[in-house]
């Protein structure tokens, strides 16, 4: 969706301002939001792209003004409500008012190290040969879906070169919306600065995206 999250190429935000000696967290609540996101996600009821979609569904004015952990908190609450784990009234009161729903899994303290180390790999066995090869010229499709997608606006309808074929990876556009998991070939596609940004752009710049096969057509 063309939400507040799709920031590539927008202007007016001013310079990047690094924070000297930045701490890992800016307050205990940020630590808890990180941990709650990881632990609740480990219940296994939603995909990473479903919760990304919950974040990007915030009204753009909120998305652009909230801190990132506040975005995470807001989206986590919405996702827990949508899946029936909690109610709005329970979130407001901080106590259970309805019986719990049984999660698929609960991440236990003693399992955290192993689960984080293993991670959640996204590569799947290929069901068909790759349509494109390294060196192929490809064009990204033009689309403006209301649903989740990982093809940013600045890279739609642009011609680039396949630099790398990364195997078949879980497809986010449908997986964000409860559809059964599917996978597609994933490619690194490289564009020149002028292809993306026009004739005034720096020709000594190249930009790449990771593009699933259905984002691409031959050029």
């Amino acid at each position, binding site marked *: 969706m063309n939400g507040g999250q799709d920031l590539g*190429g927008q202007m007016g*935000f001013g310079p990047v*301002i690094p924070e000297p000696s930045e701490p890992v967290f800016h307050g205990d609540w940020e*630590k808890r939001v*990180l941990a709650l996101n990881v632990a609740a996600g480990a219940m296994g009821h939603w995909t990473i792209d479903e919760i990304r979609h919950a974040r990007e569904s915030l009204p753009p004015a909120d998305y652009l003004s909230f801190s990132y952990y506040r975005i995470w908190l807001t989206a986590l609450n919405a996702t*827990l409500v949508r899946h029936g784990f*909690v109610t709005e009234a329970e979130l407001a009161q901080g106590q259970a008012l309805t019986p719990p729903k049984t999660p698929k899994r609960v991440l236990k303290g003693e399992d955290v190290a192993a689960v*984080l180390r293993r991670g959640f790999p996204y590569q799947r066995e290929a069901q068909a040969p790759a349509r494109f090869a390294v060196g192929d010229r490809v064009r990204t499709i033009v689309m403006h879906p209301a649903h989740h997608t990982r093809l940013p606006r600045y890279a739609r309808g642009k011609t680039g070169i396949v630099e790398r074929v990364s195997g078949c990876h879980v497809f986010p556009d449908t997986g964000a919306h409860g559809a059964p998991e599917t996978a597609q070939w994933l490619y690194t596609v490289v564009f020149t600065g002028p292809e993306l940004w026009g004739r005034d752009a*720096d020709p000594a710049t190249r930009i790449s995206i990771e593009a699933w096969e259905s984002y691409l057509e031959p050029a």
Partner: protein
Amino acid sequence: MSGHHDHDHDNHLSPIEARVKALETLLVEKGYVDPAALDAIVDTYETKIGPRNGARVVAKAWTDPEFAARLKADGTAAVAELGYGGRGGEHIVAAFNTAEEHNLICCTLCSCYPWPVLGLPPVWYKSPPYRAKAVLDPRGVLADFGVTLPEGQTIRVWDSTAETRFIVIPMRPAGTEGWSEEQLAGIVTRDSMIGTGLPSVESRR
């Protein structure tokens, strides 16, 4: 249900602190999360996983050409040799800087960042100015960090739009001949592995 909820205590919390506390209390009460798991997750990213991991990868690549070749061919497998990998970095690609091209990593759509080797991203990495500008004006981003590239060096920006995560392998600075891997790791800054900085002998800690 349980009546032990402490509203008096909540009065000392800011609104967002109160919301987070309410959420944690609720999820624990309902049996969805284990408090020990929450503490272990925080401890992991506060004390165990951070940019020193990535610095070890870079220093090894600088001193061991065969490791550098493996890192170039399969980043995930090579960083696993040092014990790194997993959540937030299941698929890793190493982008090697050369005299001809400098690499910069970003995530315009959210906050994708190579957690196992760099830890959690800094606030600026997740914020609109960087996410908006990195792909449009990377030289301007470098200027914001006080970095000017040599004349003629091109820039390659990697937008992390999938679950592949990138780490920049900077060039080894001159003046470090004969240094140990550990000494070298000491000058590899986090920003040099994002591409917004360069390691230098002066950055030795």
